[in-house]
């Protein structure tokens, strides 16, 4: 266990510059996507197996905490996808290995250019959804009661 903690700590402490941060971001975004994906897949299967539970869970996923998490998943998918293309290209093209640093930077630039407008758009959607709920006399922080959906 102590060796695992040591490995994890050194994964962050190691100063490998852009290659290190790119490796770490690819790994963390991949794990984040997988943990979301597993929940998402088992939840969506409920649309067939237990429609009532599905009805409740999609109501729950409209909660601001999950909605902000959704923006995080979007960021993770976009970064992981663009960096994955870079890794694949470099794997098949050893001639391009001299551009490791440059390509890592290009991936970050493309990621921010595409993610920032999408992230802002998604965030304004959350604010708008909350405003509609508040105008209707409700609150966007309320957790939907399971009992409303199980009949």
């Amino acid at each position, binding site marked *: 266990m102590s*060796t*695992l903690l040591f*490995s*994890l700590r050194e994964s962050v402490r190691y100063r490998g510059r852009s290659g290190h941060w790119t490796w770490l971001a690819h*790994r963390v975004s*991949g*794990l984040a*996507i*997988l943990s979301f*994906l*597993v929940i998402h*897949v*088992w939840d*969506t*299967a*409920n*649309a*067939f*197996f237990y*429609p*009532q539970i*599905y*009805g*409740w869970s*999609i*109501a729950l*996923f*409209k909660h601001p905490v*999950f*909605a902000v998490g*959704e923006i995080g*998943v*979007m960021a993770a*998918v*976009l970064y992981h*996808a663009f960096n*994955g*293309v870079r890794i*694949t290209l470099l*794997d*098949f093209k*050893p*001639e391009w*290995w*001299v*551009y490791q640093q440059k390509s890592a930077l290009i991936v970050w630039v493309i990621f921010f250019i595409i993610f920032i407008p*999408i992230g802002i*758009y*998604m965030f304004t*959607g*959350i604010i*708008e*959804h909350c405003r509609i709920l508040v105008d209707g006399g409700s609150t966007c922080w309320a957790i939907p009661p399971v009992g*409303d*959906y199980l*009949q």
Partner: protein
Amino acid sequence: MTTVTGTTVRRVTRRPVRIPGNFERYAYLFMRLSGVALLILAVGHMLIQHVLNVTANLTLQFVAQQWQSWGWKAYDMLLLAFALSHGINGLRQILEEYIHNRNVVRAINVFLAIFLVATIAWAGYAIAAFDPAEAIRAAEGFAQ
């Protein structure tokens, strides 16, 4: 000629090596190929379902409407199979870097393989057998 931190790279030396055709080689290739497929499937899914259609408007009726078409069912099944196997294999590679006890690694791999097959079977069956008319009837039973 490209200059990288003071070193001048003139040419790349190519040295042919024999690559064993074992599981790891195919797992490596699978990560690249499924990655390219997911560039379309997963990024497309995120943009279509989480930006063009927002979660705030998601209802069971919306799901029923989409899964009326076998095109959407096929898209989601492909996404399910590729995304989950890509992700589980990635997790396996990460865990094998940190866990050095071979018996523990083997046990984890067996668990991950069963989990992968069970999840794809469970969710794949749900998508295939999903009946839009029945789902819309079920949705009328609760407020959305």
